[in-house]
């Protein structure tokens, strides 16, 4: 048996050494890791408008993603009333960067509804304008989130991407892993002909071929699919004040 003091000495030296070396590694790579994370998110955002692009964002190099995002995407931050926020407002909301892309919806989800703020990405291309909305909700095991791109009629969905934290691989995780799932949303509509907000529903039973307000679900992933339905319904609703303002402005112009 070793004496208590020698045990303590060993443990203290070991922990200090391990902590120091890991901290060193973590800080020296921290910047690059943050950058990787940002590019990962930007790739997902651009994935929603892949129809407007000449190449699939998944196959683009990191630099191309950065360039494309900087040159073609205009970022706006909105509050619940649809008002456009200034840089100070974003900083006051707790995001040091002050850019709309710094807004973390996971943090916003914890705030009371009326205090939440959201990023909106306006993508400008030769093929037209697209508005990309970010949404976040709950799947079966943990959070799910996604980006939904609207065409410039502000009604038709141009594309979508989804991601998740811990859905079951092969079932719920298919919302991200199976490229056919997000592609089912293309061409669907979030307003009906009377202009009433309908969102898009993920249906278990299928039979959605001619229905512009529903898509087929994934077999074995009912809870995740319901989560997507709820997330879209609530998430897009947050943007409605802004979207309505835009639509009204367009009408007066037209």
């Amino acid at each position, binding site marked *: 048996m070793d004496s208590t003091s020698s045990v303590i000495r060993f443990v203290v030296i070991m922990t200090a050494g391990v902590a120091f070396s890991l901290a060193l590694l973590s800080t020296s790579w921290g910047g690059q890791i943050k950058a990787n994370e940002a590019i990962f998110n930007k790739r997902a955002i651009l994935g929603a408008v892949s129809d407007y692009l000449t190449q699939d964002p998944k196959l683009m190099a990191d630099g191309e993603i950065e360039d494309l995002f900087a040159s073609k995407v205009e970022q706006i931050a909105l509050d619940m009333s649809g008002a456009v926020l200034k840089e100070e407002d974003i900083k006051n909301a707790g995001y040091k960067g002050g850019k709309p892309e710094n807004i973390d919806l996971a943090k916003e989800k914890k705030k009371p509804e009326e205090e939440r703020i959201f990023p909106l990405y306006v993508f400008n291309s030769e093929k037209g304008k697209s508005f990309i909305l970010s949404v976040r909700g709950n799947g079966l095991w943990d959070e799910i989130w996604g980006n939904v791109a609207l065409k410039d009629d502000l009604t038709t969905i141009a594309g979508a991407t989804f991601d998740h934290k811990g859905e079951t*691989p092969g079932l719920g995780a298919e919302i991200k892993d199976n490229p056919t799932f997000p*592609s089912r949303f293309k061409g669907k509509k979030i307003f009906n002909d009377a202009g009433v907000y309908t969102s898009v529903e993920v249906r278990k039973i299928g039979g959605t071929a001619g229905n512009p307000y529903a898509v087929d679900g994934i077999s074995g992933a009912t809870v995740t699919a319901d989560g997507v339905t709820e997330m879209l319904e609530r998430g897009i609703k947050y943007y409605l004040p802004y979207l309505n303002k835009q639509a009204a402005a367009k009408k007066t112009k037209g």
Partner: protein
Amino acid sequence: MAETTATPEVTVKEKEPLFGKAEKKLLLDPLGDTNPITIQVLGICSALAVTSLVYPSVVMAIAVVFVCGFSSLFTSLVRNKIPKQVRMIVQLVIIATLVTIVELTLKRFNYPIYKQLSVYIGLIITNCIVMGRLEAYAMANRPWRAFVDGLGNGVGYGVILIIVAVIREIFGKGTLFAGSPIQINIIGASNNEVGYLINTAAESGFGSLFAGYTNNNLMVLPAAAMFIIGVLIWIQRSYRPTLVDVS
């Protein structure tokens, strides 16, 4: 005098080359007769969970080989200094440190695969194979051999992982290496949307034989890995009846 004392040392070294029979046995036995998954039935949890696709399984296998090898090496290096009362905690700290390094490395160099594997990389800490080798071998043997033993067991685990993943991905998704730059479509309807590099399915020749194949959803579920590992254990034991536990 000095020369005479030096001679026996040299002969000792000649008796034990750097990579001799003992090392070879340590490295190769875990691939077959002492395989951590099929014989010792350790590390099943992650083997069931990550093997639905080949690419993440390969990354996972590399991570486990790294952690298993180096944790054995470091534990063996300090084995005489470790106080007996905190033996296992020290081993855990060594494993956890290495796993954190793996996690940071993935985040730094391949963020998408980190996103895909994140939970399971963290769970290497609790992988019974790693700790099992530290307790059973590294605590009582010299560093070089402990390192080889760790590598061998990591590889033994990784090989089974990849075999299971290949079977599950082909029959569950009809692809190989999906998600990596070299993804291939093997069977099932061709999927132009995904843009596989090699697409043999359904178009012509060999692929058209399987055009009517529908992906088997069971293969995607962890339960399929259970069956496949069971069959692997069965095959291995019927080839080597000595491995069968008589009790």
